[in-house]
């Protein structure tokens, strides 16, 4: 899990305005005109507003927001399916907005693959041909990509279905093909646009587990879009919350949960089962443990398991372990306090 904290892609001061004359509207936005006013007075839609996000290599960055918050627009800037109005997208330090078409095509073929909400498989090609689509696009012959495509189909649990057509599969299986297609391209970055939103809840959980399992093995750089906070908290190493085209808060998901900096996010996290989402490491007191303790807990354990272990008693303290080393102490009263959402206004 310990990988370098290299920044793979970084988005700098990105603006996207939809309308007849975006550049003129951009000047208004920079002068402080808000989204509703821009729409009403100048008839332009403010899609994204001064976005700054760093996407770290080998981590899952989740971009979360409700529909209309601009999250799908944002992810399409990373491989330039949408051109920004202003700003930079740096890939390994190079601004891809200055690249020509051929270079962008190369980026899309080799460095960034994408998984779509509505699967977007080619209906007239078999599952195997769909999985090998990225390689076929590069000009690899079928005999050569067949082995690679079959390997990834097996890996996502679709053994022996290579000769079927996509419409013969269920939604969940179709999205597995979509994931196999992205993996078979061997790109280091995977863009996932609401990849699991169209699936029913049980299948969605399966797919999330599959993704985490694959990620533990492959360490891809993943950008994941979702409107579902539970999903975001489950997958995210780094969470970016968008509202009305602007970043409201970003950071480590546990941190956002414990320290929301905006009423919008407070509302968002209010309905979360905190005991299941919060981890011991986020609320423990770090440092040497002094005095007696009732037992050891793992630093990644969630609070629910600790409460069960304490049988509801408030007078327990636990030593927190990371592997074999003690890293801190957990007091039950701290745990109880963390279960109640903290209001930024009250703090």
């Amino acid at each position: 899990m310990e990988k370098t904290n290299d920044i793979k892609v970084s988005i700098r001061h990105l603006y996207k305005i939809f309308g007849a004359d975006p550049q003129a509207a951009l000047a208004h936005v920079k002068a402080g005109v808000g989204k509703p006013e821009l729409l009403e007075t100048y008839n332009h839609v403010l899609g994204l507003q001064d976005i700054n996000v760093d996407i770290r290599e080998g981590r899952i960055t989740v971009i979360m927001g409700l529909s209309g918050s601009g999250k799908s627009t944002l992810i399409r800037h990373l491989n330039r399916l949408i051109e920004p109005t202003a700003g930079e997208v740096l890939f390994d330090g190079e601004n891809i907005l200055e690249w020509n078409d051929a270079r962008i095509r190369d980026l899309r073929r080799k460095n960034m693959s994408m998984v779509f909400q509505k699967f977007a498989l080619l209906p007239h090609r078999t599952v195997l041909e769909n999985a090998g689509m990225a390689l076929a696009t590069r000009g690899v012959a079928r005999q050569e990509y067949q082995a690679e495509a079959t390997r990834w189909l097996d890996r996502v649990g679709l053994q022996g279905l290579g000769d079927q057509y996509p419409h013969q599969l269920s939604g969940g299986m179709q999205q597995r093909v979509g994931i196999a297609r992205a993996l078979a391209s061997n790109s280091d970055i995977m863009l996932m646009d609401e990849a699991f939103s169209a699936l029913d809840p049980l299948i969605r959980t399966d797919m999330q587990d599959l993704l985490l399992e694959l990620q533990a093995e492959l360490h891809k750089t993943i950008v994941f879009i979702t409107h579902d906070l539970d999903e975001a908290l489950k997958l995210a190493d780094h969470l970016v919350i968008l509202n009305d085209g602007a970043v409201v808060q970003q950071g480590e998901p546990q941190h956002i949960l414990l320290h929301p900096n905006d009423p919008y996010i407070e509302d968002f996290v209010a309905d979360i089962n905190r005991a299941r989402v919060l981890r011991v490491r986020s609320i423990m007191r770090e440092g040497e443990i002094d005095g007696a303790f009732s037992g050891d807990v793992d630093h990644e354990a969630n609070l629910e398991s600790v409460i069960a272990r304490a049988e509801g008693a408030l007078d327990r303290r636990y030593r927190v372990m990371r592997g074999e080393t003690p890293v801190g102490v957990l007091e039950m009263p701290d745990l109880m306090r963390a279960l109640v959402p903290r209001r930024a206004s009250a703090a």
Partner: protein
Amino acid sequence: MATYDWFFDSVGLRGWCDEGGADGPMTMADLLAKTRGQETETSLWDVPFPSLDALHDSCKAVPQSRDLTQGLEAGFLGIRDALRVVIDPLTQPLSWMLREMLSLMTQSPWWIVIPVLLVIVWAVARSWKIVGFIALMIGLLAFVDHYHEAMQTLAIIFVCAAVCVIVGVPIGIAMSRSDRMQRMVIPVLDMLQTLPPFVYLIPLIFLFSVTEPKLYGIAIILYAIVPVVRLTDLGIRLVDKDVIEAADAFGMTNRQKLFGVQIPLALPNIMAGVNQTIMMSLAMVVIASLVSAPGLGVLVLRGIRNLELGVGLVAGFGIVVLAIGLDRVTKASLARIDASQANR
């Protein structure tokens, strides 16, 4: 004294009118008025619309309506030779193709032509039922001695429909890729579709000699090309935007996208267009018999001209049988394509 004299007098154009007073030949109306003797004062009730002819009565410098039609004719005859220099060589292959196809299908013995046709039907439709139906249909036509004419009609349709597809599909693709192209082509298609077929036979007769097959070939193609162009354009535009986006996201070039995604997914619509094109060329091949297209249409025409009811009806029935056959075969191939992508 004509009705609109006061107008030209009051705006001071009288001089100009009298200058241009080279009088053409009299119209029939003038002649009648002259024979009747005197000019009568027109009452308010009879005031004519200020048309070219009415204005001409008052002012000889204004042209008559017949000058318009004559001018058009003279203009067309004027550019005809220049047009022929360009269009004649361009369309010559059409004449060759039609002649070759006609002689191939009518000169070859029936026991070769019919099996070959049935093999083609099998290759396209993959259904023994359809093959049997077509065999029955050709057998029926041949039994009442309409085999030769039916083959002529089929030969013309094959050539013209093939040309329609070869020319129409690329035009449709170009339309689907550029809104400007679409805006330019659609009025032309609308015109081709609404212009009565007889009307564009007229300039074609002036342009080419009636003995040349391309005369009716062009007429049929102009009439029948519209659906395949429209449905190709529509089919490609209807391809799922998400799939196109996926193709973009995986770095497909425009060419890969067109041949690997757009055309295969638009194929059901394109095939529907081909079906319509074949049906419309069959309709036109009957009208084109007016300008020497051979086949069943000639017999229908004979039925009308000579009031030979039986000849006309049998030939008309033969055309219906051909139409049903062609429709069944193309629909069967359409269904086959649809089945392979049933989820769309």
